[in-house]
């Protein structure tokens, strides 16, 4: 299934609105599907995209790609979006600039997940949108009907032309053979960035939610499926309770007698508190190994070994379009060769790279790349 979503506003609209289109043959027909509902239904691993990662109304300029694929679930989805394209000619009723955003959602199920051509087509769209994103003077104005806009109607009546223009730049690069399965997706993408001379930091991904059920035996090998045993829960709960009680007493005393006096009074207890913290930190959390601090982050010149494949790669500066194209090819190639993967790319300064895990087996690799504009 292929969908296109356009977010825009008419001259007098009370708010921005998302317009959905479904592809039938070579044309796009208007549909009532909402992107968030579509993703909830189609995304494997029960991953939940947060509002920030998909919100089409984002007026900060950004370009993003999200790919999730599970051979076990026989499901894959690819989301490509370009947000915050300012209009040069359209102003709303109070004189403010109109911003346009567009997103493409392609989902496959069953045998189609194994079909390379599905990813190749999405890659072409991504390359076209990357070209559009890289040109700061780009607008969608050539495809906007001003008469419709002034009448408060959807201005892009010729949606097929807009689509054709957006993907017209695409290169014909196919999916590369990466051997990413041997290397690991993080290592492969890290090497790719190094080869392009792009400095980056790698850090364990901030995760929301918790994997509560291990759906199959294969998934249990993932470090993220480590279950708490009852003792661990008990220990953690006790340490937390003692720590919270100590903090509460300290807060209360601070309010009554002030920070300085509280500090003098509390000094002997601080060492005990530190001891408790050490005990707590020595207990492993799901997906976290004993020796690794949760806020571990390192500048790397060569890809460092990350314990789990749930990684945020944060680049420290923007990239040129040629490098961006190579990163996009790398992402799609890695997705093509992996059987269980979630990959993301965000080019821009707005939006959090964050995917919330639902109930189910998590992807064995979840790698997100963040590149500032």
């Amino acid at each position, binding site marked *: 299934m292929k969908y296109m979503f356009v977010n825009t506003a*008419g*001259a*007098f*609209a*009370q*708010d*921005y*609105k998302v317009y959905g289109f479904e592809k039938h043959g070579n044309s796009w027909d208007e549909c009532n599907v909402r992107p968030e509902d579509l993703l909830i239904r189609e995304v494997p691993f029960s991953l939940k995209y947060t*509002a*920030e990662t998909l*919100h089409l*109304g*984002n*007026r*900060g300029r950004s370009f993003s790609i999200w790919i999730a694929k599970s051979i076990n679930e026989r499901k894959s989805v690819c989301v490509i979006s370009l947000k915050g394209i300012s209009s040069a000619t359209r*102003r*709303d*009723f*109070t*004189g*403010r*600039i109109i*911003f346009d955003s567009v997103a493409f959602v392609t989902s496959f199920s069953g045998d189609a997940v194994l079909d390379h051509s599905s990813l190749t087509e999405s890659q072409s769209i991504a390359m076209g949108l990357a070209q559009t994103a890289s040109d700061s003077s780009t607008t969608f104005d050539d495809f906007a009907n001003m008469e*419709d806009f*002034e*009448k*408060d*109607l959807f201005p892009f009546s010729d949606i097929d032309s807009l689509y054709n223009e957006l993907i017209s730049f695409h290169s014909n690069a196919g999916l590369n053979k990466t051997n990413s399965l041997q290397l690991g997706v993080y290592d492969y993408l890290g090497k790719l960035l190094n080869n392009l001379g792009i400095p980056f930091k790698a850090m364990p991904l901030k995760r929301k939610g918790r994997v509560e059920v291990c759906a199959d035996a294969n998934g249990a090998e993932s470090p993220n499926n480590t279950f708490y045993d009852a003792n661990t829960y008990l220990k953690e709960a006790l340490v937390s309770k003692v720590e919270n009680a100590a903090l*509460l007493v300290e*807060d*209360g005393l*601070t*309010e*009554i*007698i*002030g*920070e300085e006096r509280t500090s003098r009074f509390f000094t002997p207890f601080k060492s005990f508190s530190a001891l408790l913290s050490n005990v707590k930190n020595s207990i492993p959390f799901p997906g976290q190994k004993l020796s690794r601090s949760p806020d571990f982050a390192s500048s790397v010149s060569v890809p460092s070994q990350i314990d789990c494949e749930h990684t945020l790669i944060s680049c420290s500066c923007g990239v040129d379009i040629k490098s961006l194209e190579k990163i996009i090819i790398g992402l799609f190639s890695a997705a093509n060769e992996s059987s269980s993967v979630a990959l993301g790319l965000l080019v821009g300064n707005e939006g959090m790279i964050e995917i919330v895990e639902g109930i189910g087996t998590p992807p064995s690799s979840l790698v997100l790349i963040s590149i500032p504009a």
Partner: protein
Amino acid sequence: MPSTTTDFNILMLGSRGAGKTTLLAVMWDQLGNAIDRSKGSFQYEHSTASYFGTAAGELRRMYDSPGLSVSPGISGTDTPRALSIKLCTNEHLKPHLTINFWDYPGGLLNPESSTGAEADKFQSRIIDAHYFFVVVDAPALLEHGGKFHAIRNYPYPIQYMLHNRLKSDPRGAKVLFVVVKCEKYVNEGRSKEVFQAVQKGYSNLFSDIQESQHSSVDICLVETLGSIILDKLEPVITATGLEYPRYHFRKVSEGACHSPRNTSLPLKIILDSAITTSLAERRLSYEGLNWFRDLLGRDDDLNDLLVHIKEMATSTSDLNAHFALRPGA
């Protein structure tokens, strides 16, 4: 026992393009002048500073266009944002207060689009809010006999929402009407007319608040742009046959620059209420021990700050730009 930092939540209500983000940006821009450094200071996260800084920059760029014409205004709020400002005093290491501004896209007030997770979150914000900012678009209220008031200011959804809060919550509701785009009327000496129009335009809410002992309502005329004024409000018929207003603004002179006025008024009202709330919460939590806290002067800095804020507001704001109704006072 409370945390040493009190959360004070402000929910911004107003339709798209009313000027919620502009108001927040000019208020943030004035923070440095709001209180004397010896009495206290404000802290905010980098993301808050970046957001407001960008918005304040966009406001200044509205004056860059040639002649009396005006460049496009700030782009407004696309996704709900919670922006926090912390208030610190020299006598306490931790901030006393975190003032959270919940800036929501204006569309959430539109009954047609107020569904889904965002709308549910918005409803919970109504319960958690300590203060409500209702941003009122002055031209919609006053031009063409106020015929655009309903579609631009959403008085009915706002009054209904606050009516429910007033009836269900013993805390009542503290409401601040911030009238923006009011430069033209203030310059023409029509401030009283604006106050009356707000009371008439939200008459049900004023009646509700009159009956509520713990509630209050204030009206502030805040000139967020200062030297950009309404030229005309042009009615336009859309494809659906509905009549909407198109705004035309102009600079007061070719060399005009951003000169907001009375932006400290809403800030003073919030700080006053937030500090009073914080003091009350603390003293309630330490009942029985307050004699000892008073001996050590634990609340002196906050009490001093309250007096200081009142003095500052009196000296920097036009008192004719403020109307207050306090039924319980």
